[in-house]
């Protein structure tokens, strides 16, 4: 498929759903209205740990406009959700409170305000317990168990080669401990669902969500209904970044239970506070690292011990544990690697999926190590990375070998080339303006596995349907949360079927209409979902080509579909040798050729040893190199990013405009993690659950990101593509930390490195003691 001269693939195209978004016509879940619709709100625990003695909803029920108050006993099914069995998170808690956002009861009322008022009026009797607030406390002997099996959520090891031997041969060893903070997704649209009872024994749930099939399964289980009675439709979703998975299942179940109970549509909309303390965060991490090399810079061994604070429930912690583990070795050829990663329960807001999925944390630590090693070796940091960079044919940390699409060296070289074209900002570590400005340059390399990989089977379904007018309807089981996958799917269908983009419609995900495609995660939409669209479109194409060959009286091989015509090759410019696709499609319909196909894409299975994590895990990796120049004001600690180069090998850029959007947006999210964003806890409760106190980057914080696209084609993706949604977060955060270290001469081991941290360090003051995982 790569030999073709593409007409749509590789072109920067505007979003296919853009007009409804810029005109305000797009209907997000909160914009939906149904006759007699009611609103529900949860009564939250408000304290991080305790034994529930009683919940009394009578006062709430007596308030005007209140229709029902539900507690745990009102859930028909098992009252539990989660990602991996045995699930551990109740919809409405009855026994214990494990975090401040625990929902104890749900009020259904005629307005949002009435529901909120009534929720506050519910009387709860809780014996408060001393919360377990950090990893060491949770793991200490005799600590109270947050869940019956103890406080370890998940713990795994990766072993490659012999690290003892590797370190014994090393001539230089660097060692350090790094910390990262919790991070909030902060999508602009708070979590929202509407459940509508059908007259046919079914229930339909419209959700702002990421994984509609996951939600469907949980709703069916908790309603004690067959899954076929539940339909989940993804509404326009105002950002997700990993965040609207567990929580969408939670409120989707609650709304569905309430809707069937009161036989009316029920909407649940989180307020911003709930969106922060009542749904998952990025794991805080403590990472101890050791890296050993020869004097020439050849890395011989790496060792890491990672603790993730996962909060009250498992959520995606098991998979984040594995992903952190697998990526901790870095994008390098290292013969000896040992990593241990443990996720731990604490009485704080639970942690789960967040763009990057454990990789940003370990990349920050790993890339800090590489810079520290470069300093010890007195080597150029980018050269040290290039020397050890993973190349095609070499085994990565899991022993997996790719013989193609390992474009790391190309990203390093493209960054170096671009750097050399640009005028120097200032010499690294130099100061100017009478010593007020400190200049520094940091770089970082990264890899990010594409596809579910170790998390299980990776399949996606898509339907492609041509109408008699030649227009095309595409359905895919993976969601567009803003990242632009609908546009990419439209491009693939348009390319295969030879139609222009305006003739293609990609509908919203509806669990009735396509195969369960798993969660929309792991940068897999373009790669795995795109492949399903490609396959379905190829089948429809074969009907159109067959019909056209009959009409043009030629062999099928000579028929081209392009620009809404079937064309007799090679006379593409001859208007007499082409037929409008509309006529071909109409003829195909009346001839009885199938114009719809439901295809199924299945990535090669992961095969690996679960004790050592050696084996084939991901179908591809995105590789990247970032370079950042910063200027720090010695008097105020203010940081200005002067330059940011972000090179990623993404196989093939199907929509370069969309790629830039993913890189720029992911970069600013990584910058937020590295410099601005920090969840502040006190006694287990989040103190800054709002946008005034939690510093989401504003337009004034934006980066001068320059996206560099490297295309080393991936044989497992459509047109050679592989995903790019997550990787920019890790690269930016790590490059920032290294740039700050270069500018100040101080190695900061804790993210975020905020302005006040910089100022304090520059003034030689001791920085505060460890908090979140220390």
């Amino acid at each position: 498929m790569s030999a073709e001269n593409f007409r749509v693939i590789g072109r920067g195209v505007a979003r296919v759903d853009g007009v409804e978004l810029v005109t305000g016509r797009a209907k997000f879940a909160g914009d939906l209205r149904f006759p007699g619709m009611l609103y529900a709100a949860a009564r939250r625990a408000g304290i991080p740990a305790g034994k529930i003695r009683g919940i009394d909803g009578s006062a709430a029920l007596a308030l005007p406009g209140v229709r029902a108050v539900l507690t745990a006993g009102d859930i028909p099914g098992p009252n539990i959700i989660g990602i991996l069995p045995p699930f551990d998170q109740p919809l409405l808690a009855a026994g214990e409170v494990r975090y401040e956002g625990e929902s104890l009861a749900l009020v259904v009322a005629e307005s949002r305000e009435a529901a909120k008022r009534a929720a506050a009026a519910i009387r709860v009797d809780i014996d408060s317990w001393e919360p377990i607030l950090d990893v060491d406390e949770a793991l200490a002997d005799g600590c109270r168990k947050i869940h019956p099996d103890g406080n370890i959520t998940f713990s795994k090891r990766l072993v490659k080669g012999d690290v003892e031997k590797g370190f014994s041969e090393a001539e230089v060893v660097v060692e350090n401990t790094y910390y990262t903070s919790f991070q909030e997704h902060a999508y602009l649209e708070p979590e929202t669902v509407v459940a509508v009872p059908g007259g046919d024994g079914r229930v339909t749930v419209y959700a702002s969500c990421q994984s509609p099939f996951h939600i469907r399964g949980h709703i069916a289980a908790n309603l004690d209904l067959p899954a076929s009675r539940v339909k989940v439709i993804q509404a326009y979703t105002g950002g997700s970044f990993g965040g609207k998975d567990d929580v969408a299942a939670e409120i989707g179940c609650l709304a569905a239970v309430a809707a069937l109970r009161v036989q009316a549509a029920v909407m649940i909309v989180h307020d911003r506070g709930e969106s922060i303390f009542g749904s998952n965060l990025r794991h805080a991490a403590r990472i101890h690292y050791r890296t050993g090399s020869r004097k020439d810079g050849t890395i011989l061994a790496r060792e890491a011990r990672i603790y993730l604070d996962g909060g009250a429930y498992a959520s995606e912690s098991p998979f984040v544990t594995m992903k952190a583990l697998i990526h901790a070795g870095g994008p390098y050829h290292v013969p000896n690697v040992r990593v241990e990663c443990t996720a731990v329960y604490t009485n704080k807001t639970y942690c789960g999926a967040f763009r990057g999925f454990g990789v940003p944390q370990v990349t920050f630590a790993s890339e800090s190590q590489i810079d520290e090693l470069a300093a010890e070796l007195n080597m150029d940091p980018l050269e040290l990375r290039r020397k050890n960079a993973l190349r095609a044919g070499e085994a990565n940390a899991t022993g997996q070998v790719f013989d193609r699409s390992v474009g790391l060296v190309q990203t390093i070289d493209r960054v170096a080339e671009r750097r050399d074209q640009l005028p120097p900002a200032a010499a690294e570590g130099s100061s100017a303006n009478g010593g007020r400005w400190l200049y520094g340059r940091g770089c970082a390399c990264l890899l990010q596995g594409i596809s579910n990989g170790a998390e299980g089977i990776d399949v996606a379904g898509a339907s492609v349907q041509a109408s008699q007018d030649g227009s095309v309807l595409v359905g895919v089981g993976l969601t567009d949360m803003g990242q632009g996958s609908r546009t990419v799917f439209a491009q693939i269908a348009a390319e295969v079927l030879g139609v222009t983009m305006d003739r293609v419609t990609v509908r919203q995900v509806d669990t009735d209409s396509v195969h369960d495609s798993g969660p929309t995660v792991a940068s897999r939409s373009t790669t795995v979902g795109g492949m399903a669209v490609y396959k379905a479109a190829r089948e429809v194409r074969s009907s159109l080509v067959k019909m056209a060959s009959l009409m043009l009286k030629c062999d099928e091989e000579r028929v081209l579909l392009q620009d809404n015509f079937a064309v007799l090759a090679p006379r593409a410019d001859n208007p007499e040798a082409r037929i409008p696709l509309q006529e071909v499609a109409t003829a195909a319909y009346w001839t009885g050729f199938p114009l719809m196909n439901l295809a199924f894409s299945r990535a090669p299975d992961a095969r690996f040893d679960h004790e050592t994590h050696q084996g084939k895990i991901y179908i591809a990796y995105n590789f990247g190199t970032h370079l950042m120049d910063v200027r720090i004001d010695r008097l105020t600690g203010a940081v200005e990013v002067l330059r940011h180069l972000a090179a990623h090998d993404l196989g093939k850029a199907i929509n370069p405009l969309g790629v830039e959007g993913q890189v720029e947006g992911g970069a600013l999210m990584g910058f937020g993690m590295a410099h601005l964003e920090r969840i502040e806890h006190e006694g287990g409760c989040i103190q800054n659950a709002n946008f005034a106190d939690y510093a989401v980057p504003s337009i004034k914080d934006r980066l001068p990101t320059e996206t560099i696209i490297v295309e080393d084609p991936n044989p497992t993706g459509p047109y050679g593509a592989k995903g790019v949604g997550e990787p920019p977060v890790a690269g930016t955060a790590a490059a920032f930390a290294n740039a700050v270290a270069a500018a100040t001469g101080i190695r900061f081991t804790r993210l975020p490195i905020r302005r006040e941290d910089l100022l304090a360090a520059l003034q030689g003051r001791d920085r505060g003691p460890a908090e979140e995982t220390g």
Partner: protein
Amino acid sequence: MLLEFELNGRQTRVEAEPTQRTLDLLRDVLGLTGTKEGCGRGECGACTILLDGKPVNSCLLYAAKLQGRRVTTIEGLAAADSAADSASGRGAEGNPPALHPLQEAFLSEGAVQCGFCTPGMILSAKSLLDQNPDPDVREIEEALSGNLCRCTGYGKIVKAVQKAAAAAQAAAAQAAAAQTAELGPGRRAASEKSGNGAAVRSTKAKSAGNAKSDRRQRGASR
């Protein structure tokens, strides 16, 4: 209470609760759900509307304050401008609306991802361009600093505003040139004045009451 105000170019009479938020009046009573609620505390800008041409957070504005004022929501943007351009026949009923240059630019520059911040962002940008047709980057940053976006990283939003500004200026220059050619040299001065009508109109606009504060101020205390 009965409210009367101009909404997207039309006189509107609507019954409202005295303590109702403008955001809820627009979304729940008037069916204009293009205005979004992101935080309910005036911190994210998703609910931005224009009140007499100035951006305000409709989540912080009592509906009662709309009495006698001029309100523009995202739904009125394409329509309002195509009404002004009625001579050119844009925005006819039943057809997709002729997009405002800002809407066009947000699309073509890739300044939209999830789209939830987009209505508020575009309205803040419109207010800026109405007052300052040729803003520099700092002025764009200042004007949009009350509108959060979590998807795009903002770079493409800045480019979109610059592109829309350039397009509007080019269109205005072209219109002025055409008019001048039609009218003859004697009336050139008068037509140049009217070509800048939008800017004149919005500088007269009254202060909005809850004019949005610069998020950077609280940023300094982070």
